[in-house]
């Protein structure tokens, strides 16, 4: 099958949806002739022109607010934030406006807004350019949160996000933009809210998402050589979470590790652990162990960043802990 980079898959999804629906309009910083800081809109300005691919000034509150208003009137804006870190500036528009309008106005309008934003560390980019805020937005009702881990999923899920009539935060990991993977040439979409078993296994379930999927798969390979069979479950959609998939896997393996890049307190991993505690505790044969960043801002120093962010070895150690194995 044809191989595409993650950012190419995103550009292709945008182009296809823009051709499919003229209400799909993009805006963000440097997404026009420059093609976007991560080349996710490369060539789109040339194809669709300045009225559908619009460059924005550095004002997250302003242009995200504009997206909320546009969506309320029937436009399907796809907004790119150059770094998801600045979503904090736009969070009033997302949390208090976009997330609530359908509810407050009795469903008379829809909110078909997509905000794409790069997340994550491992780039020595400093504390203000390494955040992953998916947990914050999963907490808020009225917002969907998607974090694809492969080019195939990036394209299929972005197309579904654009067609969805709710606010969707689409977090793309910076380290994944250069990931190459198979993407079918024919049209396809992937369902929002469906997790994917990236590696079936019988001994322990590793629930993960985004960039940590790769690290989890690597850890699973290491453990497989030691006779431990890990199941790696990629959530793909953080909210709504595929609870059934998580529960089914844990019921099968009896052991759970949750691996996420960001901080642990009140996070996605907390939610997964709570879900299993509530719905499948009788299937657990050991403690739930989480692999997360340490509870400090992500350091600029590569040495310190490596210490703070979770590693493959941390996942191996977590699996050993839940299985009560001595690590080798």
């Amino acid at each position, binding site marked *: 099958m044809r191989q595409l980079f993650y950012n190419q898959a995103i550009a292709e999804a945008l182009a296809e949806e823009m051709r499919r629906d003229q209400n799909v309009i993009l805006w963000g910083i440097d997404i026009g002739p420059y093609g976007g800081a991560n080349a996710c809109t490369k060539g789109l300005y040339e194809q669709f022109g300045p009225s559908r691919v619009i460059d924005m000034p550095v004002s997250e509150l302003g242009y995200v607010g504009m997206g909320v208003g546009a969506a309320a009137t029937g436009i399907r804006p796809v907004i790119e934030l150059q770094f998801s870190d600045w979503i904090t500036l736009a969070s009033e528009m997302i949390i208090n406006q976009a997330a609530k309008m359908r509810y407050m106005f009795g469903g008379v309008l829809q909110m078909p807004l997509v905000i794409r934003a790069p997340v994550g560390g491992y780039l020595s980019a400093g504390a203000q350019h390494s955040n992953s805020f998916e947990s914050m937005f999963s907490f808020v009702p009225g917002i969907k949160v998607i974090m694809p881990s492969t080019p195939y999923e990036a394209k299929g899920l972005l197309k579904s996000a654009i067609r969805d009539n709710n606010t969707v935060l689409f977090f793309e990991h910076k380290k994944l933009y250069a990931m190459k993977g198979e993407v079918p040439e024919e049209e396809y979409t992937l369902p929002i809210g469906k997790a994917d078993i990236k590696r079936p296994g019988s001994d322990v379930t590793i629930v993960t998402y985004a960039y940590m999927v790769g690290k989890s798969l690597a850890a699973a390979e290491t453990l497989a050589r030691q006779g431990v069979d890990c199941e790696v479950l990629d959530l793909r959609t953080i909210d709504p979470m595929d609870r059934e998939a998580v529960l089914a896997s844990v019921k099968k393996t009896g052991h759970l590790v949750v691996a996420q890049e960001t901080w642990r307190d009140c996070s996605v991993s907390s939610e997964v652990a709570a879900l299993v505690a509530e719905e499948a505790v*009788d299937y657990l044969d*050991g403690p739930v162990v989480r692999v997360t960043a340490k509870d400090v801002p992500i350091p600029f120093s590569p040495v310190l960043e490596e210490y703070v962010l979770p590693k493959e070895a941390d996942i191996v150690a977590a699996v050993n802990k839940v299985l009560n194995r001595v690590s080798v």
Partner: protein
Amino acid sequence: MAVEVVMPKLGLNMSEGRLVEWLKKEGDPVQRGEALFVVETDKVTTESTAQIDGVLGKILVEAGATVPVRAVVATILAEGEAADSSGRTAERPLGTLGWSAPESPAAHPAQEAPDPGIPAEPIQETPRTGKILASPLAKRLAAENGIDLGAVKGTGPDGRIGQEDIERFLADRKAAPAVRPVQSLPIEGVRAVIAERMALSLQTTAQLTLHSEVDATGLVSYRERMKADAQRDAAPVPGYNAILISLVARALKEHPRLNARQVGKTLQLLPEIHVGLAVDTEAGLVVVVVRDADQKSIAEIHQDLDRLTERALARRSQPDDVSGSTFTITNLGNFGVDSFTPILNPPEVGILGVGRITDKLVIANGKVAQRPMVTLSLTFDHRLVDGAPAARFLQVVAGYMAELA
């Protein structure tokens, strides 16, 4: 500070591993991640690596040995750090890993291992506190399979019971022969009395039993005559027991030491001869007592027995029916028993066991003859009666029996 190197647990079901080969020698510098030794399980062969930089200290498990997972096989010392002669580090004695052994340490006695340097109990049991630790899954499986968690040995941290432990328990239970439920009957009432008296009897006396096979022709022929008389007079036919009680009562008159009881340091020879007879009832053994048997005719004894036995079987015995015997007869002839060793009925000093009457070929007056024979078994308290007088008593009983012919 020294760090213990342990036999790794490489798979969920791994309980022990064979240390195939050491890749480092004592004193070799080792780096974190560097292979230390080769371990083999029933599933895989792999290298186990150092978890820290340092120098390989004392090797505690030689190549070729099989040890339980988490058994300490060596230590890694910091540069310049010395291990003491036993190989144990000064900071932390071996055997305090804080994990419980996956199996009883006794299952791996030291002599099984080729190196006497291996600690026989490399890992100490974590003492169990009152609460039984078990994973939720283990609890559910236990409930589904009707397992008492207290009976399951946990191999997790702090002795926590996991799925693996439950499955092992179930497998063991399956392998063991099915345990059928035990029916528990209370030991109370008549049973409790019997139990107490039998134990008391054997614990406080010196019992000896003499067996003597005697000719029962007199006994049998006498009863046949009584039968004939009974038919004629429409009178009841006395059983062998009534006849035996009469004979024994007469013999006791001649041997008063067997109609006696010990009280303190005296042997009291009793003026009355009350002969007890062991009766099998639903509730258990009951000894009914024919009072003054020496002064009663066989017919009277038979009447007494009829009345006493009927009440005993109906569990309506009066106190006097079952107390005060001075000597006891127990007859198992009806059950096909030839001879046995009766137990004294305390505080009596003698008890006569009667076996079945069987026709046998015997030599009588130089000729082979068929005779009904019976074995009498006399148990007596040898503290108070010697063997010869006891034997003489049996001879007297046999003599009276012969006189009946």
